[in-house]
């Protein structure tokens, strides 16, 4: 059974035709809606794509700035500062919060970063004697970089989610367009065909019965006519004095007698 000739396995009745027709209307509406959704998602998707590329660029900038500020901090505060930082990690004060954003029924994750006041007090006295300012400048630069990175992360996640969603939607659109709708249409044609066939059979049957009836009537008419003619002939004979029956009888009787005569 190829895709084109597929149809639903239904009893071809008028009720079924109604049901299938309703389904076809539903499928068409769904198809239109999904198509719209897919378009909306694609628009969103393109916008996100542009943003991703732009943000990736600015991320490069931010990262460069932040790693350079680290170099500055290291220059002033000495190389040891990084060990101090590495050793004094306790719990994160900068965290991200994720929530959802709804775009055409697709839930997109969004991240926002926030400073957790409950987190450990940041080592604000690092480099008290030398380079404290560079250290805090470096921290600020990295917080900025994190901002960009978090934004990029939301964009990227949205990108992946949307990508997947668009694929699913397109798959559904295509499924409706190329499988469900033709199948329903095929079913409708099939049911219609069957119904027509039935109708034709009925018609033919009616025609047959009609013909039969007419022939019967004709026969009776013929019989009646014949009878009337006979009646008429008898009447004439009676008027001439010879009964039709007598003549007939003579003939019949003569026939009986001359059995052997050939001619």
């Amino acid at each position, binding site marked *: 059974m190829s895709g084109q000739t597929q149809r639903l396995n239904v009893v071809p009745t008028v009720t079924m035709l109604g049901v299938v027709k309703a389904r076809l209307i539903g499928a068409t509406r769904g198809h239109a809606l999904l198509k719209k959704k897919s378009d909306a998602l694609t628009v969103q998707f393109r916008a996100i794509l542009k943003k991703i590329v732009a943000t990736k660029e600015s991320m490069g900038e931010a990262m460069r700035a932040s790693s*350079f500020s680290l170099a500055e901090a*290291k220059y002033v505060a000495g190389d*040891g500062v990084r060990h101090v930082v590495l050793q004094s990690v*306790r719990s994160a004060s900068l965290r991200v919060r994720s929530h959802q954003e709804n775009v055409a029924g697709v839930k997109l994750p969004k991240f926002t970063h926030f400073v957790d006041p409950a987190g450990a007090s940041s080592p604000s*006295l690092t*480099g*008290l*004697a030398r*380079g404290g300012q560079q250290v805090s400048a470096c921290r600020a630069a990295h917080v900025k970089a994190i901002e960009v990175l978090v934004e990029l992360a939301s964009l990227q996640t949205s990108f992946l989610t949307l990508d997947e969603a668009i694929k699913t939607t397109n798959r559904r659109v295509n499924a409706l367009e190329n499988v469900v709708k033709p199948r329903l249409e095929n079913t409708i044609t099939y049911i219609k065909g069957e119904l027509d066939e039935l109708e034709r059979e009925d018609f033919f049957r009616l025609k047959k019965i009609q013909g039969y009836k007419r022939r019967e009537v004709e026969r009776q008419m013929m019989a009646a006519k014949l009878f009337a003619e006979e009646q008429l002939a008898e009447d004439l004979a009676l008027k001439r004095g010879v009964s039709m029956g007598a003549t007939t009888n003579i003939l019949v009787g003569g026939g009986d007698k001359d059995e052997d005569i050939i001619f």
Partner: protein
Amino acid sequence: MYSWEMLSFNIHDGFLEAIVRGNRSGLLTQADYNNLCQCETLDDIKMHLSATEYGPYLQNEPSPLHTTTIVEKCTLKLVDEYKHMLCQANEPLSTFLQYITYGHMIDNVVLIVTGTLHERDVNELLEKCHPLGMFDSIASLAVAQNMRELYRLVLVDTPLAPYFSECITSEDLDDMNIEIMRNTLYKAYLQDFYKFCAKLGGATADIMCNLLSFEADRRAVNITINSIGTELTRDDRRKLYSNFGLLFPYGHEELAVCEDVDQVRGVMEKYPPYQSIFAKISYGESQMLDKAFYEEEVKRLRLSFEQQFHYAVFFAYMRLREQEIRNLMWISECVAQNQKNRVHDSVVTIF
């Protein structure tokens, strides 16, 4: 005035002074820096350095070089030179040389204590310690959980013991206290070093006291600026200032109450030697202050080579080498990160 030094200095310390002055001529020159600033990659830097005294230390490094590797190797050279000098030294020069490293020792102790507080691996911590500040019992620092224990178990055997007796009052250790502890220790160290140098007398005392005063004043200014806006109280701040130097005691009183950079500037401009430093910096800007101080320090260190028969040359040499390593780090960072227009911002040329 210094005639008796001329008579006796060379008996004990003449050889080492000759060595340190010889080493001094190995410091990178302006021409070297110019060449280094032209480099495109870290390998170019390595090539340029191979013509200098750093050559043997870098030649076996495999090719993707990192800035940290360069800095490590250059520090290694400094450490080797230092050890060489220490082996040859007599009293009191050997004590003097050891004094130079106490600063790193304090940093190492603080690092280990910090690491211990956060339950890090001791061996990992030891790798990160500055090689100049190593001492024998450093590994056992990790067992200590509070200051008293730390002092009793480990530090009492180290030269740092007297410094710790001052800050032993703080019972519990946290990030804030550790940074204060580091600076209290450093203050005690500077004061002790100052006293030691004054005791040596002669040209050494003269020059070293000048250098250490500058160091103390610089710390005072930096602590003031960096503690603006933090939880450090004024009294705490004042406690971290060393009790000598040009700013002592009236400048300290004024610095202790400063609330922004411009007030600090107002205080400092009353002192002629620092006027020139602050004059270079525009109002409200404090970022370039560190560099200005470094330049001033280098200038003073360089001048100490002008006199003979004193110990300050050793101090000056070590400090200049450290500055040189900082310069190299800066240049290689700039080269590695493609920020060559910033190369000249922070390089302090020495000779």
